């Protein structure tokens, strides 16, 4: 599957600029106090209180195996709707809403074994910029996440 042309929200993780379809974005908020959730994969930062709703925060740096940093003044949480729930994505900086034309989108190149790229659905090149386009539903793979935690096991009868 290749990324469709249209409006993308772009953001930075370190020096890399990424894009996700704007329709998936629910809102962008500053970083709120995050409560850590034990026994979850490292990329699950924890949960926050979004106006009374408890939503999970995924650290995209950790998810993409980039060096982890603590949230800074430009850090944002992008709240997206995925798998019938809202999930917050912690990013370094939100950039812009870009119109990406079909002609600018290229297939992602194969990145060798061991690099997980199935959520990378395209590369948009324009002027001097390269943006990595994400399929956000694959980034937040609910099944993957549920299985990633240590085995909860079924509680046995007392």
């Amino acid at each position, binding site marked *: 599957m290749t990324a469709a042309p249209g409006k993308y929200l772009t953001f930075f993780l370190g020096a890399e600029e990424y894009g996700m379809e704007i329709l998936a974005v629910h809102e962008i908020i500053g970083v709120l106090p995050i409560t850590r959730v034990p026994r979850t994969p490292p990329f699950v930062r924890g949960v926050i209180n979004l106006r009374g709703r408890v939503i999970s925060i995924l650290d995209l740096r950790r998810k993409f195996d980039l060096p982890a940093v603590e949230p800074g003044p430009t850090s944002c949480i992008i709240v997206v709707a995925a798998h019938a729930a809202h*999930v917050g994505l912690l990013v370094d900086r939100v950039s812009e809403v870009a119109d990406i034309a079909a002609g600018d989108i290229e297939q992602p190149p194969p990145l060798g074994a061991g690099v997980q790229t199935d959520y990378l659905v395209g590369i948009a090149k324009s002027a001097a910029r390269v943006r990595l386009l994400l399929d956000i539903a694959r980034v937040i793979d609910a099944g993957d996440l549920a299985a990633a935690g240590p085995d909860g096991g079924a509680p046995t009868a*007392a």
Partner: protein
Amino acid sequence: MPSASRRTSRAILSRFDELSAAIGRLSVSDLETRGALRTGVLGLIDRVPAKEARACVSLRLVAEALRPDRDRGQRQPALHQAALSLLEAVRAYLASPKAGDRLSAIEGRERSTIAIMRNLPEASPALKPRTSDLIGLTERRPRSVVARAESLPALALPNDTDRSLLGDFCDEAFEYIESAEAALLVLEREPDNGEAAQTVMRAFHSIKGTAGFLKLDGLVARAHHGESLLGERRSRDGFAGRIAALSLRALDALRDTVKNLDASRDGEPLAYPSGFLGVLRELEDIDAEPGTSAAGPTGPRGATSASTARDSGATHSARVRLDRLDALVDAVGELVVAHWMIAQDPAAGRDHPELARKVAHAGKLVRDLHDMGMGLRMVPLRGTCNKLVRLARDLAHRAGKQVDCRVDGEMTELDRNMVELVADPLMHMVRNAIDHGIEPPDERQAHGKPAAGSLTLRATQMNGQVVVALSDDGRGLQRDRILERARARGLVHPGEVPSDADMLDLIFAPGLSTAEQVTDVSGRGVGMDVVRRNIQALHGRVDIQSTPGQGTTITLRVPLTLAITDGMLVRVGDERYIVPTTNVVVSFRPDRGALFTVGGRGEMVRLRHDVLPLVRLHRLLDVDGASEDPTAALLMVVGAGDRRCALLVDAILGQQQVVAKPVTAGAGHVPGISGAAILGDGRVGLILDVPQVLDLARRAQPNTQAVA
């Protein structure tokens, strides 16, 4: 019902007298007068109040006795006499229906009349006048309703259907169907309950009316035929036995139709449920089947008797979409927190006493609002109870058992979300009770019990909990069989004899079923273990009592709502967790002498006479910066079921009610955590799932056993 409304008007009674006098004067050969009198009697049927169905049947028999085109020769004078006395009996009954045994007088005279008609020995006791006989004698079959129904318009949505209106209609229709179902179950026990009968008819009628408004012609036709057939049957036979059973099936068919309609809103193709015409046909042919209406049906005869009576007195209600209601309750929950933050602010507190007073006043309003918001989601258990009674009835029919169902406390309220979650375990328990608990009628009688078993569902609210108990008077749990099974499965060592309580507890072990046969009803190897797990997931508990030969009672205790958890807020390192108060036994700071280890690593603590495993919560939950020294911190003894352990926490910060929210996608299911709540400072706190924490602890320290 006031007797005045039942009393038949004077004019009709004097018409009875006229006809009686004329029949008394009637000569055998005067066919013309006989025909006229017959017409007169038939005319009376139309004037008798519709609810006097029994009287109408008798009048038909009188008319039949006077039929001029059928000559019964020498028996005719006797037949006139019989018709006359029957007519008089009907008159006496209508004049004061409540008086004594007038109904039995009618029946006796009907018997004589039929005996003469059929040229039988006078009033053989075997000859019980069956309404089906009477109808068969007196009537030519009306034009088939089924034939009419077969040409029903197709079930199709008009192009301009308003989908949201359709949704409302479906909701409403489901409610009507539910209330009709409850009423029919009442009618099975009390066929004369006019109000319940009205409820049934009204359901069909109302669905027909609204469907007409939405131009759902197919549905209108179906509801109409259902209504008219039921109406006809009812006016002859009342809602006895088989008719009620068929009506239930007609309702099911109607419900399936509405379900299909509901699904069609989401683009599903609009399919016809099968079986509706079949039910109609059976309703019509009910008389053709021998002995059906008089035979006592097997199966439960019972239901809640008061439910329909209460319907009429119900308060007015408005329909609100559930997501809006949830949003409101959530918003109010946030308001409580927001208010708390203002109240905590020093600027609003000691610095400005006047402001503090206003904030406190607002706080009271906020709390009231919060209570009201929570109350909005409370619904009575009645719907669930009705479903269970219906289930019991159907299951008993299938198993050839007789069961009397009673429901007590059906108006007990529970959070809407909880109602759905307790329904499954309850259904499972009803299945077990019918399938394994209650014996077949002959076995019961052999043990000196009534043939019909009794099944009682009792719901009460107590100390912020709802207690639902299901009792049967069946054979009770068979301890020897449980033990045999448990040994076969290695749950009990050979030679070990568990205490009675432990024995009963064994039925909660996975895969332990003592049913001799695996039926499609229950006995699939999953059972009480699932019930217990589901109820524990609701922070509730299951208890069981059983006396051999006398029955079993299973009691569920669940909190009123899952939305609010009463919890102890504890600090562990930099994190705060909420421990549900129901799981907290005691907290204490141990002496060094109370601590010891087993095998060099399993830490234990002695508390009075108990020895408990010590669980360092911070290690289990991987929290930094927590106190390592139990004598400088605090041990909180928590329990679930029979298991207990002492959790090492830094401090108890306080006790508070929290609004429990699910931890959703991203964090997935987190073992040890049952949910999250917004704390007073606006941050999220996690709620510990104590049973799972105990499991985690046991896995982390395999050589220690949780001790009671």
